[in-house]
């Protein structure tokens, strides 16, 4: 067949479409993992947290988080007497290297680990103009960094301050609940290294998960329930001063 100008004009777009399909191969995650059989969440037992910073260090290492940015961090609360509305909150380097002794040992002192709440109705995914952030069918809020424009809408939308713009890629980044680990049957890096069991990965769709017994028998809260985000990180023993 002779390639005339007219034929070339017809063939080029057709070839482009075909090539696109060749490139878009779906990589295998884990062969036996079923997206619809899980609904991931996390349980944080505040009275068990010792503020050692193991979770923050492990997260940074597992997920290659840039220095000075945190996918998870620990806050130290200091509440003096009745001033529950005005807690003193500090988080030096995200609690990565622990906490120096507080000047005032009186009052109420405790640690609160924070991370993405993997909201079922998350504000961050609703504002994304290009569909770069989304909740997976198994309940994890992820960022597609090849699609993210870096517009920062989601960073502003998150009421928990869990997102940041990665200065290396200029795309939004956040806790992925170690999606590359939990789909392989492992727990998250932070839960793996937590020495006291203050953090527990939980699968709400698994009837054998101890989370169900725990939720029945404990007074458990989520952060900012008035925002109706459907947060799935449950806090046990959380003081009213925690924001």
């Amino acid at each position, binding site marked *: 067949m002779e390639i005339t100008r007219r034929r070339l004009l017809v063939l080029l*777009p057709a070839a482009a479409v075909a090539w696109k399909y060749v490139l878009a191969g779906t990589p*295998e995650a884990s062969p036996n993992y079923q997206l619809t059989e899980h609904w991931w969440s996390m349980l944080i037992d505040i009275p068990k947290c010792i503020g050692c910073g193991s979770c923050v260090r492990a997260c940074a290492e597992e997920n290659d988080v840039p220095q000075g940015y945190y996918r998870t961090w620990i806050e130290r609360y200091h509440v003096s007497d009745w001033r529950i509305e005005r807690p003193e909150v500090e988080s030096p380097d995200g609690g990565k290297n622990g906490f120096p002794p507080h000047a005032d040992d009186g009052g109420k002192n405790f640690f609160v680990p924070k991370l993405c709440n993997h909201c079922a109705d998350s504000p961050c995914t609703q504002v994304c103009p290009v569909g770069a952030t989304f909740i997976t069918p198994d309940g994890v809020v992820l960022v597609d960094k090849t699609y993210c424009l870096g517009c920062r809408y989601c960073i502003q939308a998150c009421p928990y301050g869990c997102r940041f713009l990665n200065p290396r890629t200029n795309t939004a980044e956040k806790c992925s609940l170690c999606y*590359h680990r939990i789909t392989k049957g492992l727990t998250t890096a932070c839960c*793996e290294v937590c020495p006291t069991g203050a953090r527990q990965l939980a699968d709400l769709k698994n009837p054998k998960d101890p989370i169900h017994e725990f939720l029945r028998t404990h007074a458990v809260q989520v952060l900012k329930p008035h925002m109706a985000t459907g947060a799935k990180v449950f806090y046990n023993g959380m003081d009213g001063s925690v924001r």
Partner: protein
Amino acid sequence: MFKDIEHLIRLAVVIAIALVAFVILRAAVVPHSFGQYGHYRGAAIGEIASRPVAFAGHDTCEACHTDVVDQKKLGKHVVVACEACHGALAKHADDPGSVQPGKLDTAVVCARCHEANSAKPKGFPQVATADHAGGLACDTCHQPHRPKIETEGKK
């Protein structure tokens, strides 16, 4: 019928070509897994899930280091995962011969958890390391995998 119908046909052809061009361009530009699960690229889930892990997980460690597991079972550190102190060692698990974990400095590692702080739970064992050990490394007296010091004859 229509006068000068040729004009209308030309217009129809132009619109038809524009429509076809739009459909072809859209198919070329939008990834074909977009919309598989929702308003996002479905293939992104698999891409994120296929990243390699850095922490091997304590089950992997325990498959080989059974002697340490037996030691830990005798003390309270049984609940502490290996990589909480030793660091991420999936590379060591993949190739134990060439990647060896480094020796830990107990003065740093132990203090991360056990340095006294008023915000720590009251029941958690804490010491002010400066007063407690006077600069000695923790493993001078304590065995990190089974830290409680047991005097002879008394268990």
